[in-house]
């Protein structure tokens, strides 16, 4: 008798989620007595809303969004954190003359919204740059799904992930030496990405906790396997991509880039990372992303402890 679990991803089927697909394909979940359904995300899917509506048991979400949702009365709890580092960055065309954050005022920057804008907003408030445009501030665009704004020169800089959009810019024909990047990690405003979250009240159920522990353990096995066999992991991801739109080259590269972000995490959340994220979000000047420290209730080691004992 297998326990059923539904996992809602943050984005479409791609190398970013290789660990989960590998675990499913390789039978790691089955071995753990789990029947896991993986639901791909997309630009119109807010994992937080899906879990609130009961459409998933576990979601992959960025911590800023999860904490913001918590403040809005949706008590999400981080049960594991496979991603150690942030992959977010701002990518600019060299020809625009942007060399450092001090050049941002007066520029047009592309930003993802839909709950992904928090890291950017807190960075800007760190820099004390208003986001309402004008001489002093930056002009913010709601960036669509792709890197066109940069290629079409509608924005001076756009948001990219180290593992995805950045390479799309390269693939489009702009050589690396024409680009300037600002990684959030390097700017000291990194926030935790791609953690696993569940609803707090469900953690009172020991059977569910047990299933979660097995799920986290099996997922981490998947991540390890993916890191060791990136090409095979990419193939598995492609296998699960039903749109038929992904390419092998891009996914193989993505899985390798993702390994750099998962490196250094066995799945257990480092409370220091958590605190750093919270501090970054709280430091948002007049308009912080979250207004008070959520405290330890927003995460638990219980599951990872059970998983790795």
């Amino acid at each position, binding site marked *: 008798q297998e326990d059923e679990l539904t996992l809602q991803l943050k984005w479409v089927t791609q190398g970013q989620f290789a660990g989960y697909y590998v675990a499913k394909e390789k039978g790691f979940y089955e071995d753990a007595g789990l029947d896991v359904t993986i639901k*791909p995300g997309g630009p119109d899917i807010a994992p937080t809303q899906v879990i609130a509506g009961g459409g998933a048991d576990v979601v992959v979400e960025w911590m800023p969004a999860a904490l913001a949702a918590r403040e809005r009365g949706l008590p999400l709890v981080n049960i594991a954190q496979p991603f150690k580092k942030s992959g977010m960055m701002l990518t600019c065309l060299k020809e625009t003359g942007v060399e450092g954050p001090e050049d941002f005022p007066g520029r047009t920057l592309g930003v993802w919204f839909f709950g992904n804008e928090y890291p950017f907003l807190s960075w800007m408030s760190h820099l004390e740059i208003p986001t309402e445009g004008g001489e002093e501030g930056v002009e913010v665009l709601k960036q669509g*799904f792709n890197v066109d704004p940069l290629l079409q020169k509608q924005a001076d800089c756009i948001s990219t992930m180290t593992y995805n959009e950045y390479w799309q810019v390269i693939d*489009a024909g702009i050589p690396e030496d024409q680009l300037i990047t600002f990684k959030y990690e390097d700017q000291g405003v990194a926030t935790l990405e791609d953690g696993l979250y569940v609803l707090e009240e469900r953690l009172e159920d020991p059977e569910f906790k047990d299933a979660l522990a097995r799920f986290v353990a099996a997922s981490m096995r998947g991540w390890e396997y993916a890191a060791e066999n990136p090409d095979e992991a990419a193939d598995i991801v492609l296998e699960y991509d039903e749109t038929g739109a992904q390419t092998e080259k891009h996914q193989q590269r993505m899985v390798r880039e993702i390994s750099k972000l998962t490196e250094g995490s066995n799945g257990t959340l480092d409370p220091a990372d958590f605190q750093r994220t919270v501090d970054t979000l709280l430091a948002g000047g007049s308009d912080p992303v979250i207004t008070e420290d959520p405290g330890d209730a927003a995460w638990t080691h219980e599951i990872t402890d059970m998983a790795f004992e």
Partner: protein
Amino acid sequence: MNIPLAAPGAGAGRSGRVGLWLRGVADKALPVLAVVAAIFVIWYAAAVWMNSQWTLDQAARAGQEVTFSEIVADTLTQDRPKLPAPHQVAVELYDTVIDKEITSRRSLVFHAWITLSATLLGFGFGTVLGILLAVGIVHNRAMDMSVMPWAIASQTIPILAIAPMIIVVLNSVGVQGLVPKAIISAYLSFFPVVVGMVSGLRSPQGMQMDLLRTYNASTAEVFWKLRLPASMPYLFASLKVGIAASLVGAIVGELPTGAVRGLGARLLSGSYYGQTVQIWSALIMAAVCAALLVGIVGAVQKIVLKRMGMSA
């Protein structure tokens, strides 16, 4: 509307029926072909013009000079053109429609089928709902006065905005898969059906109604023997609008359901990766599907109305 039977002096001559038929086909096809040809010419010109910026930028980055003919050649073969040239779209369509097995996820036919199944289910829901509402409106004055204004208001709500919420709400009551998509598609298609069907059910003239009253016919008999048959032409006219709306609804519904399969997913994934060629071919496929569906409804209309003796 009021096209005269034949222009004076526009004789069919001795060519007879076959000739007349051929003439009819040529009469219809020629203008369309001419317009399509014109569109292609404009399209190519626009492709060169719109894509040349990128070519020039790239040359500048590489520090090269380009001649006009090089620009033209490059603009028509770019990987991520701002506007793909018609032949690029044609090649992509050939690849994904003809060249792939229809069970393959890279086959557009496969994706089209996914979208069509949601479309048809949604169209079914929408049509049934629309007809039921129309029957209620026609027979019940309170419904007549209260439903219509709200039905109009419902159509001013941007469906893309509430689609994710519909999906989540349905999800939370355990409805998943094809049905949520179909419901979104039904949301768009019920409206034209209500509007058309209400005027259809009310189309019998006073005299036709009075005739049945002189027979002392019941409300049900009036409905089955008069209102319903009289509404058929109206019904079909709105079904044509409705099925096109259903298709749009099904595509919209694919986005918040994970956009994993279907034409909507193709459009979106083309969009993520800047694959304009893929977007264009999916777009054209969607339009072809719409034309096909409308055509099928039209054919059914012809048959039904003919069997009912209502088309000359």
